[in-house]
């Protein structure tokens, strides 16, 4: 799957980028970080315009996010059940729903580009919780724009080492997650 997606991007450029980011934002697990990095490399090669790519990636992601939000808000319980089963489980959705209420706008913003695995869940949970659509849209556009800008820019700067860069970012993210866990556990352990 990963190979086909990258081949399509490398061959067709913008339309492939738009299609893949939209599908991924709805909740299909696709290698989006690598896709955006390779897009940056294509921008460095002059195959696509840098700002056009950032705009298109943002637009595709926002479109997919809006679909997730709409399912949560207006899809009815049967559709929500089916969609949450597709993403994993109903329990995880309920957990994300509680977190979405607690975090609000910043939760939407950071799940667009920092904790991207939570993105589709936050979309669905925000819709179910009837979070204001206007606010959701503003946080969504801001987060997706920043995410697309960061990864496409990194891909443009390191355009000859896209695979190594993707591996670096993957390991760095895991190191950050583990560090955050260590800080939280350490806080519980040593605060007494």
């Amino acid at each position, binding site marked *: 799957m990963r190979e086909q997606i990258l081949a399509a991007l490398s061959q067709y450029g913008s339309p492939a980028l738009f299609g893949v980011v939209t599908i991924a934002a709805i909740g299909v697990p696709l290698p989006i970080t690598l896709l955006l990095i390779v897009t940056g*490399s294509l921008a460095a090669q002059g195959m696509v315009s840098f700002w056009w790519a950032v705009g298109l990636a943002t637009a595709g992601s926002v479109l997919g996010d809006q679909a997730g939000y709409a399912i949560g808000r207006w899809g009815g319980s049967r559709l929500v059940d089916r969609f949450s089963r597709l993403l994993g489980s109903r329990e995880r959705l309920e957990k994300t729903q509680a977190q979405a209420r607690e975090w609000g706008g910043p939760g939407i913003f950071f799940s667009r580009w920092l904790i991207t695995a939570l993105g589709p869940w936050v979309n669905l949970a925000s819709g179910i919780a009837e979070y204001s659509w206007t606010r959701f849209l503003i946080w969504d556009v801001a987060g997706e724009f920043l995410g697309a800008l960061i990864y496409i820019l990194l891909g443009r700067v390191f355009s000859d*080492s896209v*695979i190594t860069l993707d591996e670096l970012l993957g390991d760095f993210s895991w190191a950050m997650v583990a560090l955050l866990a260590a800080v939280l556990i350490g806080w*519980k352990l040593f605060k007494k």
Partner: protein
Amino acid sequence: MALIRRRPLLLGLTFVLAIAVTFVFGFRAGAHARRIRRQNDPVRPWMSVPFIAHTHHVPSEILFQAIGVQPREHDRRPIRQIARAEKRPVADLVRDLENAIANARRNPQPNAPGKAP
């Protein structure tokens, strides 16, 4: 989580494990960061010839020539698709491209694109 909160030993072990995982992935990220400026990406079947030419800083004409394909403007077909069209195994094309890259590096062209390998 409730079980972890009740047992300080388990909490301590989880803390040590989280620190260890941080170091392992941090070390790996550091190794990738050191590699990023010294080494080019390997040739993969999803890459097009111009893409490989860019990542390895060699003219794409040399690479097209190496796999026996007439260089055409805007030929962005992935290696896998070229292999299918040429009725050749993908591994053969990858090997030919790697050899051409190695040759180009041994005898650099004066107008080769990008940084020196």
